[in-house]
């Protein structure tokens, strides 16, 4: 997947949730959104991107991906 586009989309999600007063909750919500709405190949790509340093990603998004990696990782088929 075109990673620049995914980074942009992920950041948009981050921008919405970062406004929540409870930052821990925000991190969970970002991850949950990715889990619920992103096709596994998109999630795989963003995880890989984070693992490579996560260039361009908002900190809160990178944190969400990192901390919720297990949730986000698609089940092996």
């Amino acid at each position, binding site marked *: *997947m075109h990673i620049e*586009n995914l980074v942009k*989309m992920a950041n948009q999600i981050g921008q*919405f949730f970062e*406004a*929540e007063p409870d930052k821990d909750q925000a991190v969970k919500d970002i991850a949950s959104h990715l889990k619920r*709405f992103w*096709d596994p190949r998109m999630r795989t790509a963003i995880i890989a991107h984070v693992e490579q340093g996560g260039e361009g990603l908002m900190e809160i998004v990178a944190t969400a991906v990192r901390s919720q990696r297990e949730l986000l990782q698609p089940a092996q088929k």
Partner: protein
Amino acid sequence: MACQCGGGGCSTDYGTPARVSEQLVEVEVDGITLTVPAGTSVMRAAAEAGVQIPKLCATDSLEPFGSCRLCLVEIEGRRGYPASCTTLVDKGMKVHTQTPKLAEIRRGVMELYISDHPLDCLTCSANGNCELQDMAGVVGLREVRYGFDGENHLKSEKDTSNPYFSYDPSKCIVCNRCVRACEETQGTFALTIDGRGFESRVSPGQNEAFFDSECVSCGACVQACPTATLMEKTVIAHGQPDHRVVTTCAYCGVGCSFVAEMKGDQVINMVPNKDGQANHGHSCVKGRFAWGYASHPDRVTKPMIRDRISDAWREVSWEEAIQFAAERFKGIQAKYGKDAIGGIVSSRCTNEEDFLVQKLVRAAFGNNNVDTCARVCHSPTGYGLKQTLGESAGTQTFDSVMQADVIMVIGANPTDGHPVFGSQMKRRLREGAKLIVVDPRAIDLVKSPHIRADHHLKLRPGTNVAIANALSHVIVTEGLVDDAFVAERCETQAFIDWKNFVSEPRNSPEALEAATGVPAAEVRAAARLYASADNAAIYYGLGVTEHSQGSTMVMAIANLAMATGNIGRLGVGVNPLRGQNNVQGSCDMGSFPHELPGYRHVSDDVVRGEFEQAWGVTLEKEPGLRIPNMFDAALDGSYKGLYCQGEDIVQSDPNTQHVIAAMEQMECVVVQDLFLNETAKYAHVFLPGASFLEKDGTFTNAERRISRVRKVMEPLGGYGDWEATMMLAKAMGYDMHYDNPSQIMDEIARLVPTFHGVSYDKLDRQGSIQWPCNEEAPDGTPIMHTEQFVRGKGKFFVTQYVPTDEKITPKFPLLLTTGRILAHYNVGAQTRRTSNSAWHPEDILEIHPHDAEERGIKDGDWVGIQSRAGDTVLHAQISTRMQPGVVYTTFHHPFSGANVITTDNSDWATNCPEYKVTAVQVVKVSQPSEWQQRYRQFSDRQDDLMKQREPIKAQ
């Protein structure tokens, strides 16, 4: 339903509208005693007693007028002969409708009418369906003693300027029904009476041709006309129909009920159904008249296949086409994995068709790569309302607007996009409801005859959330919150978080003024008006959803409604105006890649288990690709096959060049449609689709109303879309079988809790049903969230305003926003193939005089519009509807390439494209853009390939 016609000419006309009153009055009509609500006319009371009083100017869709003087009656104890249409019942009144004196007067009046009317009944297009003719019979007119050599209008010239109906003044009886229908029903006021006395004649505009007048061709006047004065050209051409079938319009989300008037299997006329619960007998130019596309010569009625898109098409049998498609799909899955194919369904298809396609994808393709065109219009509604209120649907019934005291319209243009509801809203506004319009453009609702917005928040495109936050700021800081409602109905902590957030100074109207361009005082006044109303309702459209913050804005709207207690009863609510006929339904049917039918996430093991059991397969629990993701995956090489039913993604999706690049990567594209649309030009398999006249099924409109679509003719291609889907599933190795769409609905009802009570039988009985319809609500649910929210407590969300990335720069100094126009529908595939094009032959660019002046652009000039994504050329129209710095166009014509310019920015939550904001430059040019020239070449080539198609071998 005793009669399938439901208003097409066989139901009772009670003469005057029904009145509602708790007070009942007992009256006696011709010896029959009956009780009616106070305020009922004598005429209506009589009709309810089964007594038909002769009438011409009265009809129960219009307020009484009292001009024809046929309906006079005698009332004991009263002098003279009062008109029964304008006389209200009174306690103990004794009415006589037939006396020798009345017969004399009525005959006298009829003799006068006929003395100025052509005696051409036998050759008249209204013959057999003419109220004047009927009344002449009823009153027993036998001669016209005045002769026919007196003054008359028999030589008046006919006006045939309207493409769909003609106006013959010689047949006009000046009953004013057309004028009143245009005023009361449609609210356009395009008709008047020219002159007075004997000279009186109906005049469109300033006594000009209908086509040149303010007429919007809604057909209300034609419908109201009791004679052949205003007459559909199809009826003139073909004569009166011989049978009628009630069905549902396939245009916008209003979902008007229509009576298809047929002669054999030929449609003669489509007339709005008086008993239609969404439209109450009203219609617009599209539904009423623009149905000719269904029999347009461009219809492709034979399946076709080709190996490559550069090849000519080959007509084949259905079996061969299906087999070809299935093999290719299976081949792709074998080579690239099971997730490499998917399907797209259309909001133009029936619920049953949508349900089957998602079932095909889930059960036969084995993945969740199914999406609907609602993705690109109302997906944020689904997300936002589900999050806040708990259900992905509008909260109200359309009729609720008649109880609203303040109406806020945000990013919607009802008079063009949802004309029939627009007319109802205008009626309420004329009754005195206040209006707030939030729109970058001065839409008709801002100012048109008898309508004027109290506040027009003319914001900069892309700043919806800022406006919503500013409105919320005022409501919270000025103590306008409905605290009791919030305390009882909403989650406390979420409310406090929201309250704290919107109270921040950065969310004040003053602080946001620079971003929105709306004066703070105007925002404050609007907020006070909305929050202080007894009943305030919000109606919104794609101007809300089609933004990078579309979902945020939907949530912000829900916040506003919850904070002010404007939810859960008549006259209030949050009301998305759905673009296409079945947007609501296609979403309900599980056409999203993350949701099973009934908005249940695919990861929900219990729900998935139910479907797995019902369908006998194992279902994927991970979400699939959304439409824009499909394009990305295609360019990425992981997505190679697409089944596209009834949707033209190439024309309608943003950043055309990106979409085309993706299409070109596909190894198998199956398009099922009426026409060889833009997408089909990139397809390998073409399956003939069925028009709504050939469909059997249901549509669900913007108020969750499920209505029957009834087949009035056999599918031209031989199979219904649902049958094709079934065949494809079977060819893919998954056997699903239904004898008819009713069985599909039965399956839906079994699997979807909000549909448990829905069946075709019940639909036939009730006319329509608003879901949820189940054990708790057997008759359906007009108003949602009445006692509690579907999610339990309503949840406020913090809605931070994040400016879009699409910013103006010196290179792209203007913002382009897009929308639709009355005459056309979506990509125009249907309406362009009707005479509607007479009103709107091409898409044009509206530009403010100031911006035009700066660029030396004059009205009608060719202008180039360039964005970061691409460029195109349109004719310019200078218009003060625009604000300086904002330009506007529609997207109804493929050659316009409006989506060549739009970018692939999208809503953060749903990927709904940001159609409404594109930074552009506009310059005067002399020829079409390079893209347009390329498009023309490609399109011409594809047309040639179509023309060169190899016909099917004789069986």
